[in-house]
């Protein structure tokens, strides 16, 4: 297996098996790829054949979606072992997980569930992030989730400050999903730009961009993070603001439902690359 290849401050795409042939034929079309770790917890077969072939050509980022770092229970040791094996096998440039929980009482809930952001939660998540980094022997990036609700509690922390403190205490980096900020800001009623300005720029190791939908069926129109459409104008504007504020960063286009052709996905990536290039030229 190739040595670790650092993820460049360019646009990358989430790898979908349906794009394998097209991508392998022209790997230079993207700067790097990202996969969901849990889809590669099997021992072999076509998923690993594809990944090994692409890994020879492109820098790889491994994004975990199921470790439940915010779970009140102990980390799942078997999950941690499987993730460690995958990281050891593919030596990715970046490894990331979420500020969320998704398991309780031996049941796994297939979503990134919200946490009450307070001192006790910070202590808890911090310990889990440190355990993860110790198990992998490297820094991980922690991503802000899309949120649809908040908890009633005394001394709640704004999420950006919580993440800044988590990074300072655990040594983790941050994966800033700007679409998630847009979605959460709308749903919970905070200022997206102020959120982004409150993050420590040096801690941000990667950016995610994606599309969302608006669910107007209920009494309250909620923005739903479904990764099933182009990046919207508000997200692009905040992306430009973040780049000015923090400098260029590896930027992933995520598109997980109603997956488009590779050409459409690369078109979105080209929009991100154009902004990264403009920044480099201005510097």
């Amino acid at each position, binding site marked *: 297996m190739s040595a670790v290849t650092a993820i460049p401050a360019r646009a990358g795409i989430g790898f979908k098996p349906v794009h394998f042939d097209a991508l392998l034929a022209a790997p230079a079309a993207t700067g790097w790829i990202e996969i969901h770790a*849990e*889809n590669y*917890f*099997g*021992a*072999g*077969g*076509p*998923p*690993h*054949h594809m990944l090994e072939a692409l890994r020879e050509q492109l820098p790889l980022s491994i994004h975990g*979606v*199921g*470790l*439940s770092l915010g*779970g*009140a*229970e102990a980390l*799942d040791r*078997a*999950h941690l*072992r*499987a993730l460690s094996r995958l990281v050891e096998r593919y030596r990715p440039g970046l490894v990331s997980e979420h500020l969320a*929980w*998704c*398991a*309780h*009482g*031996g*049941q*796994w*809930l*297939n*979503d990134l*569930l*919200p*946490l*009450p952001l307070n001192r*006790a*939660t910070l202590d*808890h998540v911090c310990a889990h992030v440190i355990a993860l980094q110790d198990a992998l022997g490297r820094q991980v990036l922690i991503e802000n989730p899309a949120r*649809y*609700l*908040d*908890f*009633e509690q005394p001394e709640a922390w704004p999420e950006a400050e919580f993440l800044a403190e988590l990074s300072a205490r655990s040594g983790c980096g941050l994966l800033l999903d700007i679409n998630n900020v847009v979605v959460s800001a709308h*749903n919970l*009623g905070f200022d997206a730009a102020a959120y982004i300005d409150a993050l420590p720029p040096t801690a941000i190791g990667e950016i995610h961009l994606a599309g969302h939908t608006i*669910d107007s069926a*209920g*009494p*309250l129109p*909620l923005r*739903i993070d479904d990764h099933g459409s182009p990046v919207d104008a508000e997200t692009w504007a905040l992306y430009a603001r973040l780049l000015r504020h923090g400098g260029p960063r590896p930027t992933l286009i995520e598109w997980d439902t109603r997956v488009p052709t590779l050409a459409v996905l690369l078109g979105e990536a080209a929009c991100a690359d154009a902004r990264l290039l403009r920044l480099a030229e201005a510097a």
Partner: protein
Amino acid sequence: MSALLTLQASFAAALLGDDDEPVLHRLRGPHAASRLAVYRNNVLHGLIEALGAAYPVLRQVLGAELFDALAGEYAREQPPRHAALLDYGAGFGAFCERHAAVAALGYVAELAALERARLRAWHAADYRPLDAATLATLPAAELPAQQLALAPEATLLACRYPVAAIHAAHAETPPRAFAQTPQAQWLLVYRPQLQVQIRELSPGAHALLTALASGEPLAAAADSARHIDPTFELIAEFAALLAAGVFSTHPTPPPGESLP
């Protein structure tokens, strides 16, 4: 119990059941029930999709509406035990047959078992097939006592219905017409290279491989085959299985070792 653990216990119960009250009391602002419903829908929708991806032919046979309704019931009753959904839904075929109209079809649990076997083979460890040349290096006298490992995660099925034909009929769009009457079929599902194979076996070959898979030596396995079918032609059948890459040169790892 920590406050966070209590909160997550009630949140999990609300997502999989109907008791929202303990969580709703903890939420800020109006429209708390609609907000919680987003998470419930995400969880259910994701698990229904995972089951649909695991059982694509069963979904065609039952129709999307019935399949998704059954998948939703199953997901709430038996959520996954861990985050790798690669092996989620092992009991789903049997679960579907609780529904009288589904059970009346007769072949649903067997078709589900076939799709399940295909998925296991898809994610199975790669292996080097045992070939005749390697086998020929063994002294002939040792052959009867020889144990042989099947391909990793290979599944043997003995079916009352012709499920391989039912499965194949759905590879076409629209699906080809298929016989729904019982007709026994013995199958081996494995992945010699990158394509999952569904190999139809004679009853004797099924007995031979079942015995070998349980660790019996070749001579005892051959006896099992002849017990099922006195006319079982060991040499010809074994040569065909060998040529098809059914045996692995490595001992098979314990099932599920790769999954957490």
